[in-house]
């Protein structure tokens, strides 16, 4: 994290989760307000930047969003991508229970092991628009977020945009708070 005169920050954030949980779609929705129906797996890592301003603390923040491939073939190289990560979205697909289980079995452990020790994580249940197919109820997500000490639990839909912007913004605010920045809501 870079803090020059407390006005400019660069935050490296990881988006983690099993293949096809919607990591890239969440980023695309957040950055370009777009959604693609056809699934195209990420090869390696997809990195995008987005600048945001938080007026109340007179800060410009550059987000570096690392959309890290979930496929097993990246098991060995993936850990190199975590260096310097100050925050993560741990994403599961609400319609596939196995992706929920993998949060504790794999993704949280990787993030804790390889990123910054003071890194913040938020638990995300994605695909909330697929109401008839949901296999992971809200309560279970909430319970897991408490168990893994996530800063927050949010259900999102990359398709219709539900809670997408809030998710990224909240992660940034949690990181700033953790770094001693006072915000109005505190």
């Amino acid at each position, binding site marked *: *994290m870079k803090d*020059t005169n407390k006005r400019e920050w660069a935050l*490296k954030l990881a988006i983690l989760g099993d293949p096809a949980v919607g990591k890239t779609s969440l980023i695309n929705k957040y950055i370009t307000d777009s959604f693609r129906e056809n699934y195209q797996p990420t090869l390696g890592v997809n*990195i995008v*930047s987005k600048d945001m301003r938080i007026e109340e603390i007179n800060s410009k923040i550059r987000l570096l969003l690392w959309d890290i*491939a979930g496929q097993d073939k990246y098991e060995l190289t993936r850990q*190199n991508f975590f260096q310097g990560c100050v925050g993560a979205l741990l994403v599961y697909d609400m319609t596939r229970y196995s992706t929920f289980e993998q949060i504790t079995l794999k993704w949280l452990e990787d993030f804790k092991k390889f990123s910054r020790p003071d890194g913040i994580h938020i638990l995300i249940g994605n695909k909330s628009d697929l109401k008839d197919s949901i296999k992971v109820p809200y309560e279970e997500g909430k319970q897991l977020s408490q168990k893994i000490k996530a800063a927050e639990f949010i259900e999102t839909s990359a398709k219709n945009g539900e809670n997408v912007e809030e998710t990224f913004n909240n992660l940034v605010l949690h990181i700033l708070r953790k770094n001693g920045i006072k915000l109005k809501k505190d």
Partner: protein
Amino acid sequence: MIGDYKGFVKNKVVVALLQAYHDILDYDGMKSILKEAGMMHIKDLRDKNPNDTLDFFSFKKIISAQNCLLFDSSDLLFEIGKKFSFYLFPFGKNFEEIINEINSSIITDWRVSISENNENEITIYVQRCIFCSEIGVPCDLFKGFLVNSLQKSLPSEKKVFYERGIEDLKDPQHNSFIFKLKIDKSIK
């Protein structure tokens, strides 16, 4: 990007760098950097004549995009630098020749020279390194390049050791530096 970016870079340098991105970050990682640089049109540059050139301003856009996106990712940059050396000089070369060739392949206001060279240590002086000219950006990529280039030029029982050291990244002159590489027998 503020500055005067005059010069040119041989295609083979750009292709080696893109190949290094591809190896370390895979296809989408390479694409991310080119997209950020606004240089997606060169992703298939390998099909062109390796001795043709790209203008230095375009090359610098790629480096700036890389340094922006790979902020705080020094290990990855170092690994990319090693791969960059591998793809630029795939058959290995004498280290002095490599230094001469990198100078003649990237023609702009920078210089890499060997200031001391003995059996156990090589001192390299890099003036106005183009890979880390932005404030706040460490020179991990070019150091990775130098380490691997020297390692490849040595017999297998010799190993290159180096210290990354602490750089004052706020100093606008931090991209001019001395880099010492020690050579010793490898411990097996």
